[in-house]
């Protein structure tokens, strides 16, 4: 126990004294968040409309006419789920088609909700477009009937920004980079320079050294997560409402997954030159497709399905749900299980592939 602790402390000391390491693990991810965070991605795109159809078949015609409008992107859901999405800023407007609504049934009042204050143009424009579609639907069903009216009610959304999306993603990314690149490069160098051989003529066991290395990196990871979330909340207007303990749990699970891959790579590589391409082959697809910088919802269906099981996707989605939506353990159970499964795979691989020489 004592020697593992001493080795952890020594590793931590070595890590902290490496300026580049601090730069890459703490400053670089922060810089990425800050830079990307200030780039505005909200050009005038489509109107994100949530529709809650409580009128069943009676609402179908209206719904299909709304869907036909080019400038509107429709998502359907229950009142609760759509209002939650609106709260997060994922929808610009949520239209409720109430239970009594019928196109030819005479005047009914429909309601739409939107953050009129934060998104004045989109909500107004959306309201106008919806009223027009509503009129068309009524006219098509029964030309003489008095028109139904739509009123748009204000709803205060949390108005999440790109930073809220990005920061958990970047956190996941740097956990992956530290696990894979950090471990693989440093172990290959320790191997090549004979430092490990020197350790094996002392009575310490290889396991002691590995435990110390893992513990050191998990400690660094916790500090890194705290700093990123702290800077996010204090300076970048991060809407953090999550449970820190759960964030740490996910971070550590993710750390174990990627450390396992890092040790596997260190096992099969003889030099740094061999590590780099392998590490890139593993990490680049995940960086691009795991929803770190951009939402995976725009990916083609089969790619989205395939990437949904990437370990980085589990980690990023999990961290994001907890940090931004305040998800509890039960809600991120799929991510926890996914990471645990990947952790088992990567550790098994590391045990098989890791070589001391």
């Amino acid at each position, binding site marked *: 126990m004592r020697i593992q602790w001493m080795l952890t402390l020594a590793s931590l*000391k*070595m890590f902290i004294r490496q300026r580049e390491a601090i730069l890459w693990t703490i400053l670089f991810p922060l810089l990425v968040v800050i830079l990307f965070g200030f780039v505005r991605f909200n050009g005038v795109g489509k109107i994100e409309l949530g529709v809650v159809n409580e009128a069943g078949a009676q609402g179908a015609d209206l719904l299909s006419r709304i869907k036909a409008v080019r400038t509107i992107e429709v998502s359907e859901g229950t009142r609760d789920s759509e209002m939650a999405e609106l709260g997060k800023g994922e929808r610009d407007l949520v239209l409720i088609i109430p239970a009594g609504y019928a196109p030819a049934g005479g005047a009914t009042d429909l309601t739409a909700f939107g953050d009129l204050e934060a998104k004045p143009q989109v909500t107004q424009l959306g309201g106008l477009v919806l009223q027009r579609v509503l009129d068309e639907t009524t006219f098509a069903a029964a030309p003489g009937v008095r028109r139904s009216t739509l009123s748009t009610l204000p709803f205060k959304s949390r108005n999440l920004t790109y930073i809220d999306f990005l920061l958990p993603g970047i956190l996941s990314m740097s956990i992956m980079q530290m696990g894979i690149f950090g471990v693989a490069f440093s172990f290959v160098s320790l191997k090549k320079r*004979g430092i490990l051989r020197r350790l094996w003529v002392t*009575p310490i066991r290889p396991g002691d050294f590995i435990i110390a290395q893992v513990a050191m990196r998990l400690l660094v990871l916790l500090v890194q997560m705290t700093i990123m979330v702290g800077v996010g909340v204090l300076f970048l207007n991060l809407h953090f409402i999550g449970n820190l303990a759960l964030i740490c749990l996910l971070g550590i699970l993710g750390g174990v997954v990627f450390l396992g891959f890092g040790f596997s790579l260190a096992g099969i590589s003889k030099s740094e030159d061999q590590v780099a391409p392998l590490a890139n082959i593993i990490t680049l697809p995940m960086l691009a497709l795991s929803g770190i910088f951009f939402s995976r919802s725009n990916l083609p269906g089969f790619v989205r399905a395939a990437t949904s099981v990437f370990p980085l996707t589990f980690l990023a989605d999990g961290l994001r749900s907890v940090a931004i939506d305040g998800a509890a353990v039960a809600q991120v159970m799929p991510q926890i299980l996914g990471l645990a499964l990947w952790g088992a795979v990567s550790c098994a691989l590391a045990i098989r592939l890791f070589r001391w020489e």
Partner: protein
Amino acid sequence: MKQSGDIVLEVRELVKRYGDTVAVDGVSFSVRAREIFGILGPNGAGKTTTLECIETLRPVDAGTIFLGGLNVRAQAQEVKRIIGVQLQSSSFFDKLSLSELLVLFGEMYGRHVDPLALLDEVELRDKSRSQVVQLSGGQKQRFSIAAALVNDPVVMFLDEPTTGLDPQARRHLWGVIKRIRSEGKTVVITTHYMDEAEELCDRVAIMDAGKIIAMAPPHEMIDALVAGGFRRERVERLASLEDVFLNLTGHTIRDE
């Protein structure tokens, strides 16, 4: 020969292969307590492999090794506790000072060492806050000896500690090694310098192509050769070029 003691290391019929290469081919020798035992041989003779088998770093193909009453092949962990090792090509962690490294290595044996006392032993006290990368070749080798001393070992193994050092640094290291022996340690050293073997070792084994081809105290080997009628083609001059060099540049070490 100096005091001879009990046998602390006994190697019998040691064989080690790497694929088809027989690196060590039935080597036997024993080392007595408090002696400096040299293994002399050209590159590729199998010196490093022999040491690494004794040091528990390599699985052995055949033969037995007893060290301090322990069977090396069966009791590797216990053996590690009583040996001090300087590997031919190995380094230490960056970013830790010499003192921190010695403390850490001490902890690996469950010992609390006094780093400055160990550094005194190899005359590196003033470098206690430096890192290994900042040391010269001779200083690195001396530090490596200090690190091998943290567990107060019974036997020290030094693999070509003076290769690549300038004459002054070599002589300095010889002084350190002799002092360690005088403090009661047994030293096994490999070298391919004849003068070094002659100067340092109580007994040497000459190794070539995986086999020991001669083993005796250096002066006995020379006497035997001379008695057999051997004469150098040219009579030895009273001084060598190295003497000239040392006379001109002095014996003080340059690497610090």
